[in-house]
């Protein structure tokens, strides 16, 4: 399956290589560099690159290319999914998945990679098992290690590997038993100039942070589970139970994990929390343009809309912007041509407005397209779909845990077109 892995930074340095079978020369990466040159943007590098003898399957995460070398047929998603798991594991271990972190912890990284694949086939990919085998570095431990020469390899044998619930390690103990669940919903929407919804849907996830002793068996139920249209679960969730009763029943992994992600499909029901009135015009004469944007709260269920940011990718000919914002600050980067207006909290009484002129490259024809607006926002204590957790019950263990549920709504891919959708 996976033959070798190369980690490459943006500058084109191969800063780590690992082979699970015989060694493949790093010159194989030249094909990758070639493809990278052709693609321009890192996003546009094809995830699968064909070379005369190998196939390179790569992902781009946190400014690092994870390039794996494949020799024979394998489902590409299998490799891609695995590479993302590797990146997540680094994130989990070092707090960030960056070149510096990987270089600083190169031995741990190597030990991890050794355990995650055997002969190119995934062996242990559950963070709980790996943490039993290889302890994550902490400042304290690395200090102790340097002084005493003790190791970060676990002394105990990883019994979790033998279990069929590999996601939970045995013998977990906490003095404070807590379970937190974050219901995070993102609105994906495309609105046209008139404010009509072209497309809207809600994607949600429930992220959990469970710190409970022993082997608790949890049951999470919703007030309105029928809202959920499509779901995917962490392997710990018992699917049959969901099918029959619409409750989430699971023995949780220890620590942070994503319990489920879901999709709310209710085209008409999606409440759009903000409205945007905008006018962006370019004039043929005088090589200038005008911007006038107002943002206001719409269906917010009485909650405050926070962290509102408007981002506009301006056409290439826009040289600079001379605007005034009644609230928040704006920046225009003439290199990337991105206008960012950071508004902050939305105020019902005084609607924030951004107004002013743009100066264009003289002589150039006026841009044909009208840029669209990307909106970021956040609403605390509200799941925009109306999803509500009913209760959380714990079985098997005797103690009383502290339970908490938090709701957040965010903008996902929230786009406002500056043209009416009906041309």
């Amino acid at each position, binding site marked *: 399956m996976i033959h070798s892995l190369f980690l490459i930074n943006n500058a084109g340095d191969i800063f780590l*290589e690992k082979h699970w079978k015989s060694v493949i020369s790093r010159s194989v990466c030249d094909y990758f560099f070639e493809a990278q040159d052709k693609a321009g943007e890192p996003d546009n590098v094809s995830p699968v690159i064909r070379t005369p003898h190998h196939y390179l399957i790569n992902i781009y995460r946190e400014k690092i290319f994870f390039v794996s070398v494949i020799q024979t047929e394998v489902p590409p998603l*299998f490799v891609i999914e695995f590479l993302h798991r590797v990146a997540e594991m680094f994130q989990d271990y070092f707090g960030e998945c960056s070149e510096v972190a990987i270089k600083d912890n190169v031995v741990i*990284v190597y*030990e991890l990679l050794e355990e995650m694949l055997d*002969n190119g086939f995934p062996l242990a990919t559950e963070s709980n098992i790996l943490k039993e085998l290889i302890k994550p570095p902490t400042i304290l431990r690395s200090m102790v290690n340097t002084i005493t020469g003790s190791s970060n390899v676990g002394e105990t044998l990883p*019994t979790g590997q033998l279990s069929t619930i590999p996601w939970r390690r045995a013998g977990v103990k906490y003095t404070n038993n807590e379970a937190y669940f974050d219901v995070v919903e993102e609105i994906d929407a495309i609105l046209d100039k008139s404010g009509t919804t072209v497309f809207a849907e809600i994607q949600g996830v429930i992220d959990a942070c469970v710190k409970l002793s022993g082997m608790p068996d949890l049951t999470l139920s919703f007030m309105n589970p029928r809202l959920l249209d499509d779901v995917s*679960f962490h392997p710990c969730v018992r699917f049959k139970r969901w099918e029959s009763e619409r409750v989430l029943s699971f023995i949780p992994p220890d620590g942070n994990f994503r319990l489920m992600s879901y999709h709310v499909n209710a085209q008409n029901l999606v409440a759009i929390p903000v409205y945007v009135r905008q006018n962006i015009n370019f004039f043929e004469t005088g090589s200038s343009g005008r911007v006038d944007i107002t943002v206001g709260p719409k269906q917010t269920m009485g909650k405050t809309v926070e962290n509102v940011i408007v981002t506009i990718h301006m056409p290439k000919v826009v040289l600079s912007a001379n605007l005034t914002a009644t609230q928040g600050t704006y920046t225009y980067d003439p290199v990337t041509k991105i206008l960012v207006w950071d508004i902050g909290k939305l105020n019902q009484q005084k609607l924030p407005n951004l107004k002013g002129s743009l100066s264009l490259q003289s002589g150039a024809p006026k841009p044909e397209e009208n840029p669209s607006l990307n909106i970021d926002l956040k609403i605390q204590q509200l799941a925009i779909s109306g999803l509500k957790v009913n209760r959380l019950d714990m*079985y098997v263990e005797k103690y009383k845990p502290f339970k908490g549920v938090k709701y957040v709504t965010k903008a996902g891919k929230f786009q406002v077109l500056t043209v009416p959708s009906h*041309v």
Partner: protein
Amino acid sequence: MTAMQKLLQLPVNAVNIVKTVQGVAQGQEEARSPVLTPDSGQQNWYSAVQPEELRHLRTASTTGGGGGEGGGEWGEDRGTLEEGLSSAQTQPLRHDDLKEMLDSNKDSLKLEAMKRIVAMIARGKNASDLFPAVVKNVACKNIEVKKLVYVYLVRYAEEQQDLALLSISTFQRGLKDPNQLIRASALRVLSSIRVTIIVPIMMLAIKEAASDMSPYVRKTAAHAIPKLYSLDPEQKDQLIEVIEKLLADKTTLVAGSVVMAFEEVCPERIDLIHKNYRKLCNLLIDVEEWGQVVIINMLTRYARTQFLNPNINESLLEEGGEKAFYGSDDDDDDDDDDDDEEKKAEAAALAKRKPYVMDPDHRLLLRNTKPLLQSRNAAVVMAVAQLYFHLAPKAEVGVIAKALVRLMRSHSEVQYVVLQNVATMTIKRRGMFEPYLKSFYIRSTDPTQIKILKLEVLTNLANETNISTILREFQTYIKSMDKDFVAATIQAIGRCATNIGEVRDTCLNGLVQLLSNRDELVVAESVVVIKKLLQMQPEQHSDIIKHMAKLTDNIQVPMARASILWLIGEYCEHVPKIAPDVLRKMAKTFTNEEDIVKLQIINLAAKLYLTNSKQTKLLTQYVLNLAKYDQNYDIRDRARFIRQLIVPTDKSGALSKYAKKLFLALKPAPVLESPFKDRDHFQLGSLSHLLNAKAGGYQELPDWPESAPDPSVRNVEVPEWTKCTSRKERKEKKVEKPFYSDSEGESGPTESADSESDSGSGSQSGSEESGSGSESEESEEESESEEEEEEEEDEEEERAKKKKKVDKSKPKKPESAESDQSSGEEQKRIRKGGKDRRSGTESESEDESESESSESESESEEESESDTDIKKKKKTAASKPPPKQTKKESKKETKEMSLLDLDDFEPTPSPQVTPVNSFLSNSLVTDLEGLSLTDTVLAPTTIAPSSSVRLYELLHRITGEGLAVEYCFSRQPFSPDPHMVAVQIQFTNNTTSEAKSLHIEEPKLQSGMRIKEFPEIEVLPAGESVNVVMGIDFCDSTQAANFQLCTHIRKFFVSIQPPVGELMTPAFLTENEFKKEQETLLHGQLMGMNEISEKLTLGEKCQSEHVIVERVTSTANLSRVPCGSDKESRFAGKTVSSGSLVLVTVTRKDGAGALLTVNCEKMVIGTMLVKDILQALTQ
């Protein structure tokens, strides 16, 4: 260890190698010593990295990044040496350093060295000259050093085969380790060493590991198979045998890995799957994610060879119809029509044959994979999606759409792959993605490659109902800044126009509007597409052609210019006036045009010459002359060829007659079709599908068979008691059960996992069965347990009846022989009691029979005080709330039953009272004076074994492979040896076959402990139970007695651990005796050491004297001692082995308070007893 060290010290040649390598290193070092840097002495690993990193930066800047590093390790090393940077110079020195560190005795130094070496490997540096120094540490005690040595070994073993061999024996030893994890890790490293010489060793190790008890080791064996195969393909046949064996494994842990091995070694041996097919389907949901992917992909192929096409009847006809719909508008795809007709005929023929019925196994696969669409792992979802696409009936395929659309929210790489597959699917099954049309709308933030794929999907989804929406969407795309994307959009519009006749004109008009776009690329792309569209209906669109002719003045993109020229040439009859004029303009600029345009100018000239030679003859000559001297060979060639063809000369011959036909033949319009058409002959989700070319090792997806192969090959012979559970039932149970009951060893995935992990860390015996292997059996047990109980009861009754007869006729030889002291009277009583029990109904309470027996006893003896006492006892028994009683009974029913027919099977245990009496008589002898008869009368009433004889499990039916063994402490003296505790063992054979020669072997005992085995049971018929009694001398300790329980085929490790209360027998003392003994104990050699007192609060239900007595006697095998005060209860007993006295006093205080006092010489026993009684009383 020593052997290993010897082995390691032997390397005569290794030492030489070390020396030579060192020599080289030193040579370098000497040469460069003037510039030695102090960093060689740095101990801290993290700072040691520093210069390396800097070097990286430097090389990056000097070589200009890019592929600057790509020259292989040696080349690079040399390169850095030549650069003369400090770090490179210290490299050989550091190696020397490292060797020193590796040779040191300190683990910390070794670790440090290994860390540096691994970091070098990670960077792609060559560290192979350290091999001898590193390999010595393979047997290092420090786990981390060991692990890092493994990393090194696996990396360089291939290069240094001879030296690598030195490490082999370490792993061979590891393979025999009692710990499964060590065995597994040894096999893992051993099999990763790519040295051909050890192939036989690997083969042996794999074979052995494949039949290991631990599923984890077996999993590792499965992983090792492809490694060995790649090392030596000659071993294939032997490896297939191992694969076959592992495929039969029932654990989820092994399933994924062995299928992976199967796919790499022998994917063509589909016959190996037959017997395991159903099991794999059923295990699937519990297999880890990566294994699921592999299994699903394999099963897709399997199903294609074994089942019939579920769409055999309808789909072909329907699909034909669909295609005909497109075909009706444009007569261009003649080939397709032919195909369709063929297919139709074929389908009709097939339809005649017989109605399609899906194989239940086919259905099983579809049903069991469906829940996995909800997996968080994109690869699993994709695997299920492709399975449904390739195998499911058309009506059911729709379920995958939602899941695939969900994946599009994931990382862009995932999106990319999913969209590729969706694009292929939408061609065959457009309907299923139609509801999700909007999910494929393109956002300005999408990467270009994603945009283009989405566009592809949108185009495939377009039909006459949604085309207007899609076109409107396309219009917004055309305004995008991303020009590649715009070009793709125009192509897409062109394809929509060709596919859907209704919108052709609209599209054409739209495209024509684009011709006035400011962006040349857009215009050019439009021209190309318009050209294609016009070819379909040129007559109606001469104005468009005219419009395009005008564009030649402005458009510079060669492809577009060429397209316009071709159009004008082709349809010059529709634009007779403009065409010559265009040629005139082109002739002027001919020399400056691109080759592709020049060729079209020649074409145009030729066509015009043929149709309108009057106006264009000279122009054509001119163009041809220009072309004749062109630099491009093709153009000169073409010019010569055309001249010969169109200008009739004497030499030109017959061809020129046909020139007009040749040039102005009606040309079929090009078919604009998706690049994803027909890609589905590759298995979806595969690399080959993505590349649209066969990748190495790709297994073709076979076509459906004409007629179904024999389905009975998948039948598996299952032992009776594991049969008859449908998957569905099992699943439900599995999910339901663990939540509401805490019973151990339950079937749910999680519960079984618990038990497994336990056994994994503890003993190995239990780990054999795990995962759903046990589930199937277990659930079975659940469903049958009730029935069984009933059956048991029936059987029991019958048996009881039979035995009654036997009893009467059979003289009880052994019993009478062994119990000399027992009086005939007592014998009678016991037999009577036994009869009573046997004839009594099941629901008869123990209490009742107890009191009855005591009654009979009391009748035979004196009746002074005893009467009142019995009455009291009876009263309490009667006053007990009846519901509680029945509850208790129903719980114990089965247990009691097994106890009741004890004496019928086993001659050895003599009735309880016999030795009691012997003991009694002893005490009588010693303490003649203070004896009052009343006390002895009282004794039997209290010593009758309390109702709660607990049953312990010795061997679960699952672990015992159908043989269940339970035991209890019968509290009856073990007559062959009075120092032993009698343990009654009940065997139940749950299998369908006889169990033979059940006996005990190899007891592993603590020193001093002894076992008196029960006589071997020769045959235990299926479904039968048998009771035997064995004796164990526990030496008055609660240590477990370990031994092996053997059948004729298997051995099971079992252990019996006695509760402290079972280590004693009742002793009968008078009140005075009791006090005296207590006194002597208290004031014996160690004052106060022999008394333990504990205050306690009695449990709610435990306030009355009767309950206290009951609780205490059930906890410990003690007899009650009469007592004057009703606040106090006294009990006495002696330890079985050493005969030390155990005295217990419970003094009740006001309310629920009480004081428990235990006097015993054996302190450990005393403390443990206090604990147990305390627990019993406070509950």
